[in-house]
């Protein structure tokens, strides 16, 4: 009982961090990733190359390392010299990392749409932007939802990496209580909390996917 007396309030505090990191990353990364995907497909080779390098770095190095670099190493970069706070560093690292992953999913989704859809929009006199927003993007979202769902669930679990910057999420709460009472129970409890979050998300994602089933 003592274990839970200590664990529950700490879990509630940790949940604020876990869900906060999750929500801010999701809300900002998804729209940003659509822009990044378009830039990656830009006819301007320089733009496409620069975006390609960004995606390569974000996907080619561990998120843990990116968190450490942005918090501990960013202000060493000449000219910039700006030091992020812990929470800023977490938000920046997660958004940059997940934008890269989401953007590749959206790029695949955009490429999967038949070129005839764009051509039909063109001969109807629609602008490129209008055609993308009204014709292409709704079809892309339907196609990429399963892959986006996968990343969203990975994101929930990745939030535990914030421990490296000393920020207390739910996993850190479990560790603290486990150390105090020499018991493994807090870890099992937190495992169940993760499963509960993922169960809710899976339901939400299923509902979103179902919403797009009105057409084939």
């Amino acid at each position, binding site marked *: 009982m003592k274990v839970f007396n200590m664990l529950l309030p700490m879990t509630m505090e940790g949940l604020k961090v876990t869900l906060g990191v999750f929500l801010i990353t999701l809300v900002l990364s998804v729209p940003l990733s659509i822009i990044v995907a378009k830039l990656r497909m830009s006819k301007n080779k320089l733009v496409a190359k620069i975006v390609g390098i960004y995606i390569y770095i974000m996907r080619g190095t561990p998120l843990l390392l990116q968190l450490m670099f942005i918090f501990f190493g960013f202000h060493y970069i000449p000219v910039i010299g700006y030091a992020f706070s812990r929470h800023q560093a977490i938000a920046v690292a997660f958004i940059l990392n997940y934008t890269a992953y989401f953007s590749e999913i959206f790029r695949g989704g955009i490429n999967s749409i038949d070129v005839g859809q764009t051509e039909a929009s063109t001969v*109807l*006199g*629609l602008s490129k932007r209008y055609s993308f927003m009204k014709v292409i993007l709704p079809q892309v979202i339907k196609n990429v939802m399963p892959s986006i769902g996968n990343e969203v669930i990975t994101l929930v679990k990745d939030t535990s990496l914030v421990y490296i910057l000393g920020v207390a999420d739910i996993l850190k709460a479990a560790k603290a209580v486990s150390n105090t009472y020499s018991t493994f129970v807090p870890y099992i409890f937190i495992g169940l909390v993760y499963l509960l979050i993922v169960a809710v998300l899976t339901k939400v994602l299923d509902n979103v996917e179902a919403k797009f089933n009105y*057409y084939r």
Partner: protein
Amino acid sequence: MTLIAENLNKSFGDTLVFKDIFFTVDKGEILVIKGKSGQGKTTLLRCLNYLEVLDKGSISINGKYLCKDADGKVQYAEKEDLKAYRLDIGLVFQNYNLFPHMTAKENLLLAPKFLDNMTEEEMEKRAKELLAQLDISDKENSYPYQLSGGQQQRVAIARACMLNPSVLCFDEPTSALDEETRGQISKIIKGLANQGMAIIVVTHDSSLVEELEGNVLTMGK
């Protein structure tokens, strides 16, 4: 003349697609462009609709140029003139290219909504008229996957007619249709010509060529 095409030349790299093509189509006329597969019929239609760029030649509709020859090179119109040209020509694709996430009526209303050149009431009225004329009024709230091939094609025709273009192009309109539906489509095409549209039909279907009773341009040998 409504549409005048002169000296059209097109290659893909070293491969010549067509050379020195001339034709005109007037209001109410049907021009059938026939030929075997691979003779460049569809490419020609795509050039007329500015989905492909010509190497040489000039195209105009009602005096508005899409492109013309200048110093031996093809010169395309400026952005605003291109917009005006686009409104004067429509294309019904071989595979229709309907927007699958929109109902038949939404497919029809998308372009006028963007162009904002009609009131909501006018758009609705025109869409209903076209759907009735093409005998698919009961399908206005159906999605493309719920429609047969012939019905999808009618929606595509109605969508292309929404902006009342002077010229309407058809790419292989009967390639995926049975004989009965083909007869209906050729009637529709003739009906549109009777209403004053200039029609260009690309096909390799000799029965359709006969049914349409239009001027014939043969591509290739």
